[in-house]
């Protein structure tokens, strides 16, 4: 029997949006004891669908114009606010992508779970507390008695998401809506949370509507899959059907774009060493005037070398110090000790004036394509800024910029436009062009493809590999994504808590990881589906 039946749901976008409907003619079902994954790229309408079911979408901005949403036979588009509030929590509940912001930072987590009971039941304070502790035990939170009194910021990301799940499930609703609940989590945590959701769902026999962009996650957890594109469902069916034999070309394309965990064969680079670090250390904070200040060692004694024409990957979870290494090398932060050798010259402690001439040798592409370009300056202005700094005339710089636009696969007219007129992938191409305009020897890509949709990600990865070859760059590729790393890196270094735990040729490391942490990391990567799966 279906818990949720959405029939021909169409939700209008406000006037002036880029398309008239957020979702159009969406029909789907969630059966009892089943997980439905809605998968799609950004802007596909998958979140709008979820929020519409919860009645949380802002009705003024997102107006349902036709269709029904039947929760256990009751059309939630047809009921009043009081009834809707009653259904929320009791019959359906929701967990969100960012557990940090989804929890109220100034209330104790236990009280936040307890609030659910306070709203919907007449239990006494102590009864509620017992129920909360039970719920917390249920999601396998350690020492729930103590954790009850914690604030969200005192917990880890995984623990916070467990709190959210405990909260959502205290009243044993029949439907759980999970909106990208693991996207913000590290890969090892993600694996645990996915397992937890699946376990609980099995045990309680509820229906789950799981929103994700990641086919790996889909493969891991889904019973049924619905693929969305531009507000419409293009394909739905059982997980075996959709992943095994996708019918819609879009689905096929998406699945094909998922990078494989198996590194391809690569030639061993033999170019000269362009970048080297020796005992690179970065600590934050310092001893205070009174007593001991808090000191965080972000990077501990990192040694690395990158040759020209070679890509070195640094892989690690958040807080591993991988980005700090990049920023130290760029001298965007000052290393605490150790050496950074560019072409054999140590720049670790040069003053800004002396450093300047080295800047052009080493360039970086950042993660967030939306913040990497000054929104007030045209693409052309952004690209020529560096070369002009180093004495190129404006005309020469513009000519070079035009050339580079073609290299990164954009039209030279793009130079006159502003960043907001481009998509994320295009902006990342522009950033690459900006870096290349400096004619660097070394290119650092700091999570450069992590914010991109999977189809775009593949293209940008190709571009990066292409320019590495074309300009004989030494490339330092920083990522948390083992699949991506597998595809582009010649060698990889795995970092954990500021330390390099393992390094070697990519294929060797993936095939035969030595360190426990590396093994855990590889094992946790969701949905071990290669393109062949």
């Amino acid at each position, binding site marked *: 029997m279906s818990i949720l039946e959405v029939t021909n749901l169409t939700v209008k976008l406000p006037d002036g949006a880029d398309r008239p409907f957020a979702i159009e003619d969406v029909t789907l079902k969630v059966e009892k004891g089943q997980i439905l994954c809605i998968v799609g790229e950004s802007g596909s309408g998958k979140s709008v669908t979820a929020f519409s079911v919860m009645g949380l979408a802002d009705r003024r901005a997102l107006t349902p114009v036709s269709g029904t949403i039947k929760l256990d036979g009751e059309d939630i588009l047809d009921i009043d606010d009081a009834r809707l509030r009653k259904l929320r*929590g009791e019959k359906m509940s929701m967990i969100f992508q960012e557990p940090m912001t989804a929890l109220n930072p100034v209330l104790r987590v236990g009280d936040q779970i307890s609030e659910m009971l306070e*709203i919907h039941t007449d239990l006494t304070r102590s009864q509620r507390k017992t129920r909360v502790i039970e719920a917390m035990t249920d999601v396998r939170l350690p020492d729930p008695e103590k954790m009850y009194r914690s604030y969200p910021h005192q917990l880890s990301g995984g623990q916070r998401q467990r709190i*959210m799940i405990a909260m959502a499930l205290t009243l044993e609703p029949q439907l759980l809506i999970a909106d990208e609940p693991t996207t913000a989590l590290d890969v090892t945590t993600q694996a645990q949370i996915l397992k937890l959701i699946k376990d609980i769902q099995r045990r309680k026999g509820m229906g789950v509507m799981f929103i994700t962009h990641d086919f790996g996650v889909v493969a891991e957890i889904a019973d049924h899959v619905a693929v969305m594109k531009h507000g419409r469902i293009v394909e739905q069916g059982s997980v075996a059907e959709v992943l095994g034999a996708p019918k819609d070309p879009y689905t096929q394309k998406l699945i094909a774009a998922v990078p494989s965990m198996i590194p391809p064969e690569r030639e061993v680079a033999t170019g000269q060493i362009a970048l080297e670090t020796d005992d690179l250390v970065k600590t934050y904070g310092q001893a205070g005037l*009174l007593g001991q200040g808090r000191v965080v060692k972000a990077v501990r004694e990192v040694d690395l070398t990158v040759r020209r024409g070679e890509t070195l990957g640094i892989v690690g979870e958040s807080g591993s110090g991988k980005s700090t290494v990049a920023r130290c090398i760029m001298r965007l932060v000052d290393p605490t000790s150790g050496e950074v050798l560019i072409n054999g010259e140590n720049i670790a402690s040069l003053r800004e004036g002396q450093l300047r001439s080295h800047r052009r040798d080493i360039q970086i592409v950042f993660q967030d394509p939306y913040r990497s370009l000054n929104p007030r300056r045209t693409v052309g202005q952004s690209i020529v800024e560096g070369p002009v700094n180093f004495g190129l005339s404006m005309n020469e710089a513009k000519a070079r910029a035009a050339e580079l636009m073609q290299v990164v696969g954009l039209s030279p007219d793009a130079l006159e436009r502003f960043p907001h007129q481009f998509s994320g992938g295009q902006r990342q191409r522009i950033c690459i062009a900006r870096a290349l305009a400096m004619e660097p020897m070394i290119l650092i890509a700091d999570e450069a493809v992590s914010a991109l949709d999977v189809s775009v990600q593949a293209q940008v990865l190709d571009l990066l590999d292409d320019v590495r070859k074309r300009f004989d760059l030494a490339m330092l590729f920083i990522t948390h994504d083992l699949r991506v790393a597998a595809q582009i890196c010649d060698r990889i270094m795995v970092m954990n808590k500021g330390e390099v735990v393992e390094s070697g040729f990519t294929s060797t490391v993936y095939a035969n990881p030595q360190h426990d942490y590396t093994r855990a990391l590889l094992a946790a990567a969701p949905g071990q589906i290669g393109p062949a799966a």
Partner: protein
Amino acid sequence: MTRYIIMRVLSTIPVMVLVALFVFLMLRLAPGDPASVIAGDYATAEDVARIREQLGLSDPIVVQFLRWVASLVQGDLGTSIFSGKPVTELIGQRIEPTLMLALTTITFAVVVAVPLGTLAAFRAGSLVDRFVMLFSVGGFSVPVFVLGYILIYIFSMTLGVLPVQGYKSPFTEGIGPFLYHITLPSVTLSVIFIALIARMTRASVIEVLEEDYIRTARAKGQSEMKILTRHALRNAAVPVVTVIGIGIALLIGGVVVTESVFNIPGLGRLVLDAVLARDYPIIQGLILFFSFVYIFINLIIDLSYTLLDPRIRY
């Protein structure tokens, strides 16, 4: 925490020294000479010189400054040139009315402004919102003294329900006479505060209402009223409390005017009279005192953040 407080207190020392030096130089380098004010019409140049000598004003500025700082260190703010009373005693005599005025004003303002601001935020863009905002902006638009006159005219002269002026201590004369006398000045002074706080509350609550955890609360089925009181207000409190802290400086300025209009013998009048008469020790002492109070209150406010927001730790 203790370490933080000690550090904060220590770090105010250079600021206070700076303020002291600034005030001192400003007073001494400017025209105006208390000796000739004292000497009056009959004084000869010699008389003025003798008075100046007597007051220690004829020494080099550096000597005067060092002498002042030396006595400051011993907790002595000097002696009024005119009344001959120690500045600390004068402050002691005058601090109660000002303090009580400030306290009642802030209390009143918070009690009125926070609900108003929250209401406006909750109904952002509605007629209620517009009305509340217009009212609070209006509070910024009328000079305090005009408002004071208008309120006196209405409530004291025409309706005769409240007294024109004066201050009664709640400690010696009872809470009734105190409230009877403090109501008008407090209301007058609080208008600008209500504006400030209501505005900040509105902005802050609007921002908080956009947060994910508000959505979470809705997803739990919580009612909008409870969402406001339980989730929004506490999270919105930090900027509101901050603005109260900033407002203390404004309040001190407003107190000068309000004390004049309502004839309240407080610190504001004291410092104003001292400036007009060039009673250097009082001006120096009081500005330093006000700076200290301001810094102290802001320290308290910073510390209060730890109560309002568990994420903040020093």
